């Protein structure tokens, strides 16, 4: 009898604990379900239909997906998104690391430098883009003016297919490198000073200290940063939409802009939903692959 009631009390207690855990999760779960899970489910449903301004028109099964896979633009724009990852991620990681190393040194006005490098990150994408559009203007832009002052030929930064991607990449580096720097800085401060002292005693030069202490010490942060930057740059939209409108031609038309055009400019919401889900799937595969790859290296 006694034993029974204790067990009962215990299970009640466990239930209460469960319930309170759920109660604590509700503030997260409700918005997550309403604003994330439900739109995805609805998007999946829409992707099986012809869906226009007026809503559902007719059921077409997997036709939308078949149509996308037959569309040359799908492959072209997907490649553009990956191309940006290839040129941007190494750039922002290297610059972020260099900046972090610089502002980690003891120097006057260190806090000022740190803040200045970080500042662009707080701007919104449209402001950043307009600043750089002005600077990269082929006629009277600052960049071409400076080049001209040195007797160098300018370029059509935003309308020349050879330069457009680099212009977008440089703009994005300027905008986001501060965030990368801050994370590296945090990583640098985790590395025990004793390691460097010991290396000094052993007579290691600065390159050797960097190669054998700093870099390995940052490997954890580095992995997170690459992971995050790959995902963020695959989702590139604002910069190309504002600065080049996907141009010249469709040179900088990324996958997300392709979805945007299909949905919001052409009113083909069913097709756009299918594109979004395919893109989501591709991102999941990449994320999983990255995750596997990184965990393996850690072992």
């Amino acid at each position, binding site marked *: 009898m006694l034993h029974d009631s204790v067990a009962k009390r215990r299970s009640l207690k466990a239930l209460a604990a469960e319930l309170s855990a759920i109660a604590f999760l509700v503030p997260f779960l409700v918005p997550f379900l309403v604003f994330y899970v439900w739109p995805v489910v609805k998007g999946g449903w829409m992707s099986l239909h*012809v869906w*226009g*301004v*007026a*809503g559902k028109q007719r059921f077409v099964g997997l036709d939308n997906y078949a149509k996308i896979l037959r569309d040359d633009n799908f492959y072209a724009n997907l490649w553009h998104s990956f191309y940006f990852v290839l040129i941007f991620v190494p750039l922002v990681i290297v610059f972020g690391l260099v900046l972090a190393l610089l502002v980690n040194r003891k120097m006057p006005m260190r*806090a000022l430098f*740190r*803040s200045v490098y*970080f500042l662009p*990150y*707080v701007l*919104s994408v449209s402001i950043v883009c307009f600043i750089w*559009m002005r600077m990269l*203007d*082929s*006629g009277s832009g600052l960049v071409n003016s400076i080049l001209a002052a040195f007797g160098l030929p300018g370029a*059509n930064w*935003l*309308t*020349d*297919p050879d330069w457009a991607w680099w212009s977008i990449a440089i703009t994005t580096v300027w905008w986001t490198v501060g*965030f990368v720097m*801050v994370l590296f*800085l*945090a990583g640098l*401060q985790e590395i025990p000073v004793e390691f460097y002292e010991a290396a000094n005693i052993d007579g290691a030069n600065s390159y050797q200290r960097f190669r054998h202490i700093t870099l390995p010490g940052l490997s954890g942060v580095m992995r997170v940063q690459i992971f995050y930057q790959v995902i963020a740059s695959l989702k590139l939209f604002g910069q190309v939409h504002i600065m080049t*409108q*996907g*141009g*010249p*031609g*469709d*040179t900088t038309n990324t996958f997300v802009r392709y979805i945007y*055009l299909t949905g*919001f*400019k*052409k*009113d*083909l919401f069913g097709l756009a939903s299918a594109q979004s889900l395919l893109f989501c799937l591709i991102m999941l595969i990449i994320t999983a692959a990255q995750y596997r790859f990184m965990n393996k290296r850690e072992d």
Partner: protein
Amino acid sequence: MKPGKWLQTTMVLTLAAVMLLAGCGSNSNEEGSGGTTTSAAETAETNSGPVEITYWNLFGGGEGDFADQIVKNFNDSQSEIVVKALRLESNEYYAKLGTALASGKGPDVAIAHVDKIAPFVKANQLAALDEPAAKAGFDYADVTDSNAQSVVYDGKHYAVPIDTHFHMLYYNKDLLDKAGLLTADGLPNLGDVSPEGFKNFLTELKNKLPDIEPFAVNVPYFHEPFYNLYYEAGGDLLNADNTQAAINNDKALQVLNFYLDLFDSKLSDVNDKTPWQTFHDGKAALWFGGVWEAGWHFGEQNLNVGAMPLPPIFGSEQHWGSSHTLVVPAYVDPAKQEAALKFAKYYILEGGKIWGQAGHVPAGKAVVSSDEYKNLPYRKYFIEAQKTVKFAPKTDKYNAIDTSIQEVLQNIVFKKVTPQEGLGIMEKEINDILAN
């Protein structure tokens, strides 16, 4: 500051920034703003005060001031209706209006371009206006016939057109004068009006004024200059019953080759991302600009500009045109529909006088024929040019078709495909859209 503390501060700052940005994002993506104004309007009505109607529009920049003035004047002119104007960002306007119409929550009256209303009409999301118009004492006979006709579907009016807008040939008189290419009447001395003649004119300009761009072309929105000359050549986007693409033909090819030739001969700058500004700054001699730029160019002290209808370079005087209209969503109750139509009536009869100053040709017959309007600079040419505009084909697929054409045109201009290939792609894409 200690390093640790500094890091903490930065992290807090980052977090604040991220939250701020997220806030902005959701603000501009959600329908929140529209929803709240509507509920505000509803509470006002139950108080049996004046009828409050919410009015969405997309007028920014120079024309926005004129649009605001009209709303203010209307509100001041009577006491039974209060119009609450909400200006939305023009790029996202139709995404928002579409969502509002589909969800049944949003404006009581809204601006829509004439070429955008077909899908909404087809979806039964817009109110037919003949009945509320009669109640509000508004007569479609007061509207220019071509405008009134443009909003008729199945014999019923679904909008109140407030204007027609299109492009004019703007020319910099000082530059043309310097090059000796201005006639005694102050018009460009175009000579032979043909593709070759026009190119010769530009070449002469270039020779006389080597630092000036002879003809600024709207490359970022290249479909506009393309439509203008393609319509001049007698071309159509679709066949007569809007079931097939009609764009892959010699006329389109000639127009495209004409523009590409101008770019190649440096008579126009393909790399200019703000050609309207180039012209406004006096760095280009000619420009096909919208009538809505009239107030801006004519108002600039340092700029001596004239405007004339687009010369019939490719034969006819047909050219691209569109029109702003006022629409009333189907979910709006009859009382507010009537109020909305009273506002529309005011826009046609009175507001047009102010609207005409912005540059658009007002749709009200009385306003356009008034001396007040005709005395505005170059408006007699505007009225002339308005007679030969060609509106977009009346199909609910127009958005998709127009977007496809825009994308392919960019690839043609920047030589990722040849004009021939590009027209083939357009034809295929348009036929795919129409078959769906």
